[in-house]
């Protein structure tokens, strides 16, 4: 590209100004990346939720249990392929700030319910054969430096006492967004130790349907089946179930979008002002370009391209920094297990940066393109 040196030279004309403008884009896009990570952390459960899975909870509240006997009744409902159950354990590992989710699972049905979690076959068998066996996600194991064979003590809060587990398996996710911060152990172990308080009860059920198109109909059938019983149910798709958790935190998306919008609007003002000053300073030079035969459109594109280059470089730096931060993992100690900057957010950030660059440059560029050479050359 024979005009490259024109653009590069102009970028280095005022190094401090260019650096500061690049910095503005970098900071804004870094913040955008961070907001996208946080937004994703709250809503990622929605993204990875299985479209063919329903969650059945107690109608009163999710913290109320359901009878274990419902499993067989659920399995008999037409359209349901398989059923498993989960139980929130809520224990503490060493310190309350070391938060992570622990579930007592039904070994026979859990693994096939969640094919997105990959567990080496021998490790799974080893886990199944150990009453005190446990499975940890790979991120969780990395976080605490666990390896297979470790003995892990967890202090119960809902279920009192110290619970000792043998780490028998480590699972990973098929997709980057899959949650690998969980800790699973045998439901039978829980039931055995809590045989008075928790006997015959489970936290909630997850059912897989044959056809996702029938999910809503089957959810209604489930709730109708258990209506007017002591343990009425409320059934939702897994996505709706995850969304209800997000809603409990408030309208996170709106909050994040609002912050993002303010940041980008401010960036637009800063970058627009910078480009306007940059063009005003060079008005004679642009006039000379036109005098020697460069067209108004060329001058317009030159200014726009400069603005886009600044936006792309600054924005790129910001997004790379955000990505690097996300690669270091959740800095909150488990509150944001899905700490991940998805490629879609990177692409959206790049488009936004270029959009702001274009918007910031277009008016000064238009003015430069329409510049009257005679008038501009008269200016001192």
């Amino acid at each position, binding site marked *: 590209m*024979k*005009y490259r*040196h*024109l653009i590069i*030279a*102009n970028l*280095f*004309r005022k190094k401090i100004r260019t650096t500061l403008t690049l910095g503005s884009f970098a900071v804004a896009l870094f913040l955008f990346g961070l907001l996208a990570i946080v937004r994703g952390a709250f809503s990622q459960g929605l993204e990875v939720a299985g479209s063919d899975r329903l969650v059945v909870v107690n109608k009163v509240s999710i913290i109320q249990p359901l009878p274990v006997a419902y499993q067989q009744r659920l399995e008999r409902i037409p359209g349901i392929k398989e059923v498993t159950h989960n139980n929130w354990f809520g224990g503490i590992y060493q310190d309350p700030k070391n938060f992570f989710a622990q579930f007592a699972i039904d070994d026979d049905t859990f693994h096939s319910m969640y094919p997105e979690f990959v567990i080496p076959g021998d490790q799974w068998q080893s886990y199944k054969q150990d009453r005190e066996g446990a499975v940890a996600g790979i991120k969780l194991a990395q976080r605490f430096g666990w390896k297979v064979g470790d003995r892990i003590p967890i202090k119960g809060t809902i279920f009192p006492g110290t619970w000792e587990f043998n780490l028998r398996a480590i699972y990973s996710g098929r997709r980057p967004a899959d949650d690998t911060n969980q800790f699973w152990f045998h439901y039978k172990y829980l039931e055995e130790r809590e045989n008075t308080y928790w006997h015959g009860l489970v936290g909630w059920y997850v059912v897989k349907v044959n056809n996702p198109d029938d999910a809503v109909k089957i959810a209604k059938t489930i709730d109708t089946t258990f209506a007017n019983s002591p343990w009425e149910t409320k059934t939702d798709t897994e996505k709706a179930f995850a969304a209800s958790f997000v809603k409990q935190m408030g309208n996170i998306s709106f909050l994040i979008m609002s912050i993002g919008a303010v940041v980008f609007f401010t960036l637009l003002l800063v970058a627009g002002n910078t480009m306007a000053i940059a063009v005003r300073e060079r008005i*004679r*030079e642009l*006039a*000379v*370009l*036109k*005098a*020697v*035969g*460069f*067209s*108004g459109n060329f001058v317009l594109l030159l200014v726009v391209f400069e603005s886009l280059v600044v936006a792309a470089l600054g924005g790129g730096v910001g997004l790379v920094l955000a990505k690097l931060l996300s690669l270091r993992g959740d800095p909150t100690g488990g509150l944001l297990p899905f700490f991940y900057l998805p490629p879609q957010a990177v692409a959206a950030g790049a488009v936004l940066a270029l959009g702001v660059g274009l918007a910031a440059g277009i008016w000064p560029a238009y003015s430069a393109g329409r510049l009257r*050479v*005679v008038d501009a*050359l008269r200016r001192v």
Partner: protein
Amino acid sequence: MVRVDGSGNGSSLVRVRGLDKKYQRGSEEIHVLQGLNLDVDQGDFVAFMGPSGSGKTTLLNLLGGLDLPTRGTITVAGDEITHLSGGKLTTWRARHVGFIFQMYNLIPVLTAFQNVELPLLLTRLSKSERKQHVETALQVVGLGDRMHHYPRQLSGGQEQRVAIARAIVADPTFLLCDEPTGDLDRKSADEIMDLIDRLVAEHGKTVLLVTHDPVAAARAHTLLHLDKGVLVEAHKAGSTAGGRN
């Protein structure tokens, strides 16, 4: 041969007929040029003098296609430019006009080489061809050894030489010089005028020069005086009135 009475034949390189230029300043109408005629032949060197506000620069801008007249026609090398649209006029300018300004108007972030190369970027020349043309132009103006210097590293006279190299590099039909020595000391001014003389004498360039400097104007083949929008021939010492000597 230079004529201002409209008697020139169709062979003139520059042919101006009935040129009027008016400006509106508030409610006041300023008549800068009035019914001006001019014929300039290939290889002529014409100087325009006159008091400030007499319309010299306006005339130069009109001849260079930087501005449009209120009335009248300008024909250069057979092309009537007064009816060209903005884009066509820009293209025409790139092919036919080399501008030399009082303030040099070099791009400070580009080297001498890159400044001179600018007009060639609009051509289809390859990179190596452009390099060859630029080096030749800079050698013509005596700056073959300053190619990679930035304008801030050059003296005023050297900057103006770079501007001249930029003006001639694309081999335009004619050069328009607006006070090219106005910002220079006498010695540098003389050197610049020597260079312009050489461009006319050795390279056959047609030069139209606006100046306040009688010494610079004396170098021209023809001196024209512009006053109150009217162009008249002036006699300069040792010259033949009305044309090249």
